[in-house]
Structure formats: C-alpha cells, structure tokens
C-alpha cells in the first residue's frame, strides 16, 4: 500500500521552483475548480492540470489520483442524478427506489452531477500536481517560523502517512496468515489495531523530532532558497491565468445554470478562454519539455 499522493524530486521548472511560485502557477486552475461551474472551462482546467503534470514528469504520480477521482466523479454524478429531483427535462421517468421512493432522472440533475464531478476531478488533479512536484519539507520549513506547533503536527502527519500505510499493509498480510481456527479478523478490528499502532508510531516519531531539536526555544533558521531557472515563466503563467479567471468572473461570460432548464455559456469568450487556459499553463513548461526530449534523442 502506498500513499495516493507521492512526492519525488523532479527535474523541470515545476520540480525546481519554490513552493510559493508553484502555488501562484496552480492558483488559477484551483480557482476555476472551486469558483466556476461552466463545463467547458472546467474541462480546460482539467486538461491544463493533466498536461502540467505530464510536462513535469509526474505522469504516473498524477494518474493514480486521477483514476481515484474518476471513480469518485462517476459516483457523484450518479448520486446527484438520482438524489436531485429538480429539472424540467425528464430523461427517465418514474422508477421506485427504497427510501427515496419514486425517482425521475432529469437532464439538469445529470448535468449538475457531471459538473460537480468535473470540479472534483480538476481539484484533485491540481492537488496531485502540487504534491508530486513540491517538496513537503520546503513547505514545512516555510510554515515552521510562522506556526511551529502546526508545522510539528504537519511533520508528524506527513511522516505518519507512509508509516501507517506500510503498517496497514503488514497487518492485512498477517490477517491473511492466520490459521483457520484463529479468530477471524474483520476490517473494524484491523482498523482499530492500525489506529492503536499509529499512536505508538507517532510517539516514536515525536521522540525523534524531540531529539532533532524541535523543542528548542530559539527562532529557527529560515533558509532562503535561490531563484531557480523557469520560475519567472511559471510566475508569469500563473498571473496570466489569474487575469483570465478575473476577466471571466467580471464579465460573467462563463455562466452555468442547471435549473430549471440547462443554460451553459458557450460563446466565443468561453471558447477563447478554454483554449487559452491550457496554452497559458503549458507555455512555461514547453521549452524544458522540448529540451529534455531533444536531450533524450541525443
């Protein structure tokens, strides 16, 4: 068992850049996921995030959360279509379900579910790119001088996750190795045991942190990371993306209303934006991508 989101040192601008630069770069995509419901714009943001992950050499690290997000998105879309009984365009009329009673499937509820699902997928893709490319140690280092206790908790959690994943895997295997006459091991018992073990593990990790000097009263050194090649491009891309997002928000050009009847803005402004978002996101990564491919051929 391994963690869904896995950082590894990577070449390329996204792997080298300081965390705040990557945050600015990804901010427009995250904002689109959380603040917009137009499916064309969301699709564009999703494509941009996936391309950014691929260009950063984190295709595999992005694919795993993407698969997870895909399954979750399908579930959300299906549940919304069944649970929401609003909308004027009935696609499937009247079937009975336990608890819910008589259910109609409407085009509007289905569309709203798909949009919700898209937002989840985009948000997870953006987070996957972030966690695959940004060294958590650098983020924690940045937080530490501002909020030492929060950084301590975050450090414990960030280390406890892979340790607990390894423990869980071992416990599950030990469960399979029990003899036929031993008490069966259910998921609840395993989960209880894993939680109890995690408490022990976190005590050991806390002891290690104590020995490293976390409890020192003096203000810790805050390393200054030098500017890295490609950061200017990422920053420019992030700012350009935010400008696009702001323009969309101010003009209201990318509207989406599910009820009572489906209304989706799909005019030239949306089309231009949908093309511009992936282009702007990919622009600072293209040079490095092409150079690495040329280098590969050599």
């Amino acid at each position: 068992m391994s963690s869904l989101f896995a950082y590894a040192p990577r070449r390329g601008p996204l792997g080298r850049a300081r965390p705040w630069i990557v945050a600015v770069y990804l901010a427009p995509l995250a904002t689109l996921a959380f603040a917009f419901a137009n499916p064309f714009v969301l699709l564009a943001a999703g494509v941009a995030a996936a391309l950014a992950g691929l260009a950063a050499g984190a295709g595999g690290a992005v694919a795993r959360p993407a698969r997870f997000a895909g399954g979750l998105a399908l579930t959300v879309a299906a549940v919304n279509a069944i649970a929401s009984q609003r909308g004027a365009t009935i696609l499937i009329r009247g079937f009975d379900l336990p608890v819910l009673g008589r259910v109609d499937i409407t085009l509007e509820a289905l569309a709203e579910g798909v949009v919700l699902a898209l937002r989840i997928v985009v948000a997870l893709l953006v987070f996957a790119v972030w966690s695959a490319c940004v060294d958590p140690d650098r983020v924690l280092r940045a937080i530490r001088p501002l909020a030492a206790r929060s950084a301590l908790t975050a450090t414990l959690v960030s280390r406890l996750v892979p340790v607990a994943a390894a423990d869980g895997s071992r416990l599950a295997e030990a469960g399979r190795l029990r003899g036929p006459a031993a008490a069966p091991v259910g998921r609840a018992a395993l989960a209880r045991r894993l939680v109890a073990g995690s408490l022990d593990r976190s005590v050991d990790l806390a002891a290690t942190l104590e020995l490293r000097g976390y409890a020192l009263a003096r203000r810790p050194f805050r390393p200054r990371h030098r500017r890295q090649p490609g950061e200017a491009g990422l920053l420019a891309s992030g700012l350009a993306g935010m400008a696009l997002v702001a323009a969309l928000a101010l003009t209201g050009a990318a509207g989406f209303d599910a009820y009572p009847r489906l209304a989706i803005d799909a005019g030239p402004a949306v089309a231009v934006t949908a093309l511009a978002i992936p282009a702007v996101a990919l622009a600072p990564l293209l040079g490095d991508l092409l150079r690495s491919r040329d280098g590969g051929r050599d």
Partner: protein
Amino acid sequence: MTEAALAIERLEYRYPGAPGLALAGVDLRVGAGEFVVLAGRSGSGKSTLLRAACGLVPHFHGGEIAGAVAVAGRSTRETGPAELAAAVGFVAQEPETQVVSTTVRAELELPLELRGAGAGEIARAVEEAALALAIEPLLDRTTDSLSGGELQRVALGAALVAGPPLLLLDEPTSQLDPVAGEELIALLRRLNEESGIAVVLGEHRLERCLAAADRVVALDAGRVLYDGPPGRFGAAMLGPAPELATPIARLFDLAGLPASPVTVKQARSLVPAGVAARPADRRPVGEPPAGEGLALRCRRLRVELGSRADPREALRGLDLVLDPGERVALMGPNGAGKTTLLRAAAGILAPASGSIEVPAGAAMLSQRPDDYFVRERVDEELPGDAGAAALAAVGLDVAGDADPRDLSGGERQRLALAIAMAGRGAGGEPGGLVCLDEPTRGLDRARKEDLAGWIGGLAGRGAGVLVATHDVEFAARFATRVVLLARGRVIADGAPGDLLGGGWYFATETARVTGGRAITPEGGAPLLAAPRDPLAREEAR
C-alpha cells in the same frame, strides 16, 4: 581529568505505572572518545539507559527518576533532549520512525536548521556527514525509497550531523544482514577513531562488536553486572550470565582453555597445534524423524514483485524440496529472496511461472509477531477447542486471560506462531510447513535457545520448518540443512557443517576459529581440548 562524555551516578528509574525499577542504581562513566558496548539480556535495561543518557528519560517518557545523569557536564534533569542533542546523538532500533523528512538531504539539514545554523554551515556539515557515512549518493532520494540499512545510515547521519561528541545506538544492526551489520560496526569504529566521538552501542549480537570496543558494560535487571575490558568479558560472564558470553568465549571455556580471546584472530593464535589434524565435527544437530510425504516443492519458481508496469524479479527459477521433519535455515543477503520464498509458500504471493506445492499447507510467522494480535485477550485470539489446542501446543494455555501485548517477547512470538498454526495439521500435530521470517530479531541468546528448542519440537512432530535468518550462530544451533540464496536463486544447499563452516560472512565464529572443522562451541571444544583418550573425548561430547 577530562570531562566525561557521559556520567551516570546511582541512577534509578521507573516507567510510569510500572511495578518495578527499570534501572536500579546504575553508575557509569564514559570518557571522551571511548567505544563502549552495552550488553545484557532482553529487558535488562539497555534501551532505558540509552534513553536516559539522551534525556528522553524522563523528559519524554515521564516516570520516577533518582540519581544523576550528565552529558558533557550538562545535567539531563535541567536540560531537555532537544538542547542535549548538540552533545549527544541517539539512533534507535527501528529505522522507519527515525526519519521525519521527505528527502535524505532535508533529514540531515533539519537538526542544524532547528539550531539556527547558517546556510553555509548547514551545507558543509551535510556534505561531510554524507561523505563520512557513504550516503552521499542518497542525498536527493526520498526517504521512503530507502532500504532498512540505508535508512539506518541516514538516521545515523541525522544524529551525527550536528557533531555531537557522544553517540548512543540501540541495537542498530538488528535488521541488517551480516555484511551490512559488520559494515556499520566498522563505520562506527572509524568515526570513533578518526573523529574522537564516544560511542555507546547497545547490542545482542556481541560477537559482531566486541572487537571494536574499548570497554564492555553488561546490565542485568537494571544493574551493572560487568564493567571492564572486552578481553575479560567472556570469562567473567560464563558464571553469572553465560548467555552473554560470545561463541568464542564458550568455545574456549568448553575446551578448558584458560584464555578468553575477543577476536577470531586472537582466538586462532591461541588454538593449540595439531587441531587441523583432528577429525572435524560433523554431527547432525538432531536426527530428523522419518516423516512421510512432502512439506514443500518448488519447481523453476519465478516470483515478481513491484507493480505490473515495473515488475522486479525476486525469485528466478528456484528449485527446492523440503521433507517433513526437516529444519532448514534459509540464508542470504538482504534482497536475496528469502522472505519472498516464505510468502510464496504461505500463499501470499503467486508465482509468475513455475510451481510451488505445499501439500499439507503452510503456516507463516512474519518478522513482527505483534502484527498478529488484534484482540485484547489471548483466548479471544484463539477461541474454541482448536484454539485451546493451539495455545496448549505452544505452552500458553495458562495465559488465556492475558493481553497479548503484556506477554514477554518470547511468549508473544509463540502466541503469534499459535495463531498462524491454529487449525492446520491434524490431531493436534502441526504438520505441513512452518515458515519463520527472521525470528531472532531482537532476541537474546537465552530466547534464541528456547526458539531453537521449539523449532526442534515442531520438526519432531512432523512439520517441515523453514527459517529465513541472517543469524549464522542461530542457524548452526537449530538447522539440519542450510539453503543459501542469492539474487533469487539457490546457490548452495547442504549440511550446516559444510555451509556455515567455510564461508566469509556466512560462517560462525567457531568455524572461523577452527578453520571450518566445527560450527558450534560444543562441537569445536573437543577439537581444541588437550588430547585425551578416545573414551574421555566421547564422554565430553
């Protein structure tokens, strides 16, 4: 007189809620640049003493403390572990919980950053520590991609990077193969000699580290039992704590030789002339019962690990047959495929090609017995008549109402074995195959002797027993056959006397001393003893 790296006076300590003292009046002084090996049975107080020396006791663990501990002149009562960390580094047994950063470089940088060191100082110290410990190639790797041995070195680097004059280590080699374990000890000795770092090393496998030590301190029930040079340690322990004596010390004692050498080189120089002409000891450890049928058969077995997209071949066309009643030590370096073979036999891993047959089924005990415990009481883990029979088979039928986690290390191991075997075999007999993965990790010699007895009992009742182990001394005590793996293949398969007698790393101390003519002290003693009449020698056997 120079200031001691560590000074402990009349130290008494009781863990919170514990009925007895973990340390009961310990006096210890470690001088600057000394290399001290801390010996003792399981539960003798070694780990507690090391934790007291770095301030975790009492600041982190709580409890009641009396007496005084000073590290480089600073009292651990008034100074917490974080502030003491500049004067003392601590490396614990479990490497997984000793790294707290994502990358190796960040792990080494962290202690210095937290002390407010500057960027230049940090960069230099990290490079120097990495070069000294040969982990420079790992600096930009993520910590979750490292092996146990690599993680242990990184933890050592993080403990050393701030340049403490005292280093404490609690069984750092327990998870390493003989090669990696000896490399680590050599590395510690080099750091001690070249950098003047005082080292206090808690260890069970004393034969690995006594040669590096300036001094040995043995604990027993929280008290100092011995404090002196390694050269007298073996002889001194033969009376009060014979299980702490090294194989060489036992060999010389059984042979009636007055000397108690520490190293194989010293021992060889003291071996009487004419030993090479005496007949080699080739007695079997025990007669295997004439069991019927088959315990295990592997034919051209290939097993792949890793993801489907990136598979790694762990077993590469392995052939092996095991009969009921056989006691087989499966040996080889880390990554040789030992655990993979056991997991395949237990049905956890499926072959990629070839076949594996376990006609009467397999019970497997993995490296951590505690993973098998999910209930609060022993009898809840093993309910009913079959459960009671399984408990009785390992001698734990009287401990039904105990919490599994309150049992001793050896009892926990036996309970886990009972859980793995419950309901297998017929008529209360184990039957089939019993697989044990590194069962001696963290066990002292007395518990290893108990375990060897249990393995003999299982084999005597018809089970084929396959034990993956790095512990050559243990293998020499229990095995009737040794199988050596390397890179997923069997590279040697034969009698313990042949395989543990002639190798470089997979050879016992007795074998090294006697030139491979015997592998256990009991077998080697008649060779070294003064020639007697044949009848007397036979009696000695």
